[in-house]
């Protein structure tokens, strides 16, 4: 049976995507219900806007990330590319504005076009650089994109300081962008970003599943040596993949700059590359390459953002403190379930032996700590957070021990 998520697959109900969809709906429903504000129902429009906007932004970057991953590579630099693109755009705007215009309101349409063009061009150049480092210098993709992860952001900051000093006489870490066009973009950004995301998703899907290039991408990721020996010019296919990744990040950079009205290379989009890779992986891409679909990635992005949003609603703390933990747990769980389903390892025991025995109290302890911290922000549990933590830890312990017992019963 053909696993969903590969090219040339049959038209079966894609099991993996359905599972994510079901999980997404479940999270949505549970959050809406448990939230004392019933935010999703009471403030549907604004909640929807937040989720759509964030999903679209993450999704644009994740689409690029998944193309790179399907082709067998990896791009760690997406977040820095976003910052670099935003900075480039802002700097070109600055150069096209009146010399003393610190808010960049005087930029005409030609300047705006030039700025957007420059930002996208920077994406193309970075993608080409990646390909060159990987194919000519033979750096592993991890290393090449790690170098740009740190290098691009630093370069963007240096550029920002240099140009602001030259133009305005004093260095500045950020550039405020109040150009009317971008302000308009920001005002309507939910629908513009959602629309762009949708169009990009359709285009990506078309390329991946219905063109020769797409087939070559899957082949390259599935078995690079065999692809080359089949007459595929692997270097060209890689160039396409890495440029796609960088261009989508560049596009996201422009949107992000418009949304926050500022280009601040030091802090913009830190960590976004990991969320994008996580969305792709949750959506079914395999980091070994050759596997992945666009619907999966789209759903993965939606699911991830929904869970992060749920934290804001339920725990009433700001999600970004917990974001890392959530993404980590979700990725681990999602990939585990994908692997189990795909390679038919349904009979494998997770908690056998000494290491399984050690894993159980470790996981239970983490769960207890996490629950205690989360409970601190939930008013109804005030004063009883410690107890809550212990209870959650205890339940986890018992549940895992039960699973271990069932596994050993089944094995013998």
């Amino acid at each position, binding site marked *: 049976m053909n696993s969903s998520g590969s090219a040339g697959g049959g038209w079966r109900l894609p*099991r993996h995507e*359905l*599972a994510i969809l*079901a999980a997404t*709906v*479940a999270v949505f*429903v549970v959050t*809406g*219900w448990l939230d*004392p*504000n*019933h*935010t*999703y*129902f*009471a*403030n549907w429009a*604004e*909640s929807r*806007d*937040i989720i759509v906007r964030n999903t679209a932004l993450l999704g644009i970057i994740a689409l690029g990330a998944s193309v790179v991953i399907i082709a067998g590579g990896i791009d760690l630099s997406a977040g820095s590319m976003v910052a670099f693109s935003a900075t480039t755009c802002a700097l070109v705007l600055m150069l096209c504005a009146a010399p003393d215009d*610190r*808010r960049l309101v005087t930029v005409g349409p030609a300047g705006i076009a030039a700025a957007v063009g420059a930002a996208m061009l920077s994406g193309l150049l970075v993608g080409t650089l990646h390909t060159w480092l990987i194919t000519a210098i033979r750096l592993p993709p991890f290393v090449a994109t790690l170098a740009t992860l740190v290098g691009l952001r630093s370069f963007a900051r240096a550029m920002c300081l240099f140009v602001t000093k030259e133009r305005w006489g*004093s*260095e*500045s*870490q*950020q550039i*405020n962008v*109040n150009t009317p066009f971008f*302000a308009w973009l*920001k005002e309507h950004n939910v629908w513009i970003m959602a629309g762009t995301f949708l169009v990009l998703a359709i285009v990506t899907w078309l390329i991946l599943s219905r063109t020769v290039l797409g087939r070559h991408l899957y082949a390259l990721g599935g078995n690079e040596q065999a692809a080359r020996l089949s007459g595929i010019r692997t270097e060209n296919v890689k160039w396409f993949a890495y440029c796609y990744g960088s261009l989508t990040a560049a596009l996201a950079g422009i949107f*992000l700059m418009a*949304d*926050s*009205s*500022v280009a*601040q290379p*030091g*802090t*913009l989009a*830190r960590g976004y590359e990991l969320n994008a890779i996580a969305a792709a992986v949750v959506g079914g891409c395999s980091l070994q390459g050759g596997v992945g679909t666009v619907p999966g990635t789209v759903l993965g992005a939606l699911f991830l953002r929904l869970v992060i949003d749920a934290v*804001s*609603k339920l725990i*009433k*703390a*700001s*999600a*970004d403190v917990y974001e890392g933990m959530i993404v980590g747990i979700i990725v681990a769980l999602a990939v585990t*379930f994908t692997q*189990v*389903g795909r390679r038919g390892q*349904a009979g*494998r*025991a*997770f908690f056998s032996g000494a290491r399984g025995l050690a894993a159980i109290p470790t996981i239970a302890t983490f769960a207890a700590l996490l629950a205690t911290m989360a409970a601190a922000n939930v*008013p109804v549990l005030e004063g009883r957070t410690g107890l809550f933590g212990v209870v959650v830890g205890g339940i986890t312990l018992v549940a895992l021990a039960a*699973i271990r017992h069932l*596994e050993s019963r*089944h094995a013998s």
Partner: protein
Amino acid sequence: MFVAPMTRSRLHLALSMTAAILLAGCSSERKSASPTADAAVGKPAASATKKPRRFIFITNGDDPFWDALLSGLKDGEQRFGCAAAGITVARDVNNGSAEGQIERLRQYATQDDVAGIAISVIQADNQSIVEEMKKLRAKGVKVITVDGDVNRDTFRDARSYYIGTDNVVGGRTLGTAARALLEARGVTEGGYVQFAGFTDNDNARSRMNGVKETIGPAYAERDRMADEMDLPRARDNVRNATQNHKDLAALVGIWAYNAPAIADVVTESGTRDKYVIATFDAQDLAIGHMEKGRIDVMVVQNPFEMGVRTVRLLKAMVEDDKPVLDEMFPNSASAGGDVHTTGLRVVVPDSTSPVKSNLFDPQVVEHMTLPDFKAWLAKYNLTSS
């Protein structure tokens, strides 16, 4: 671990459960309809349903300064009877970026139990932050700025009031003190560098300009260096400044963590005595440095008091308590009347310091020696200010 395949019947079950829950959720929502519209019209909220409400304080970043403020918030919560009115006060620590504040403001806009927001705006000129604040106000949520304001010329209508230090006065105070110290050493000319988190931030700008004003024309401002709230970078800036400018006579720290950064670097390089070190705020590390003689003067804000007054103001706004509002903002009709300043203190190591109390207007600035200051902190269980 056994993973059962997603069978069709399970899918149906999931979908019908979803529908049931949605219906349940909708009906319960109707029962607890929120009266946020009423609050905007000035009807006293006490007569509306006792629905729990929240005041949220959004900081600009992570810094011990905000811990002192949190103590003030909690103190105010108790002092002004918030619990009886069903109000809880919480603090939300931002991650040091503009997007962080924008996202937080958007999230709070969707939560109906948020009745008041106080924010220390990280970038005074950022249009996006301003727009989110305006949207909150349009919804009826009370919005004020504390410690970090928006650009008052262009974005004044983003918030109702501002509570904070008068940063210009603060800067001038520090400049005056620095001048006194330099003259006492017999240094009649030289350069100085000012260090802050962001040079574009409203309070940073005001302070730095104030310092420049009063330190006098004899001394030249060689640079303003920003570190984006990155502590290692703050230290590197100090090192670079001392290396790049040979005539440096004074180092001025503008944000709370710049003080220990400067003190650390001059101690490690053994150049303490070359410079006059004048800083803002009293982080507990900074207090320690002053005790060891590494800081000459601190101009200290009162974040505790800021917290207390934030709660008082928000509660008064939500309950439309006119007497309190008039008391805090007597000149609300005139320009600048929406600003409420909290006090400043000048702290010196001991009474032998050349910075004397007669340099300052006692109405505005309180002059204290370090031991007295520490006693005041202890009274309120604080370690910093």
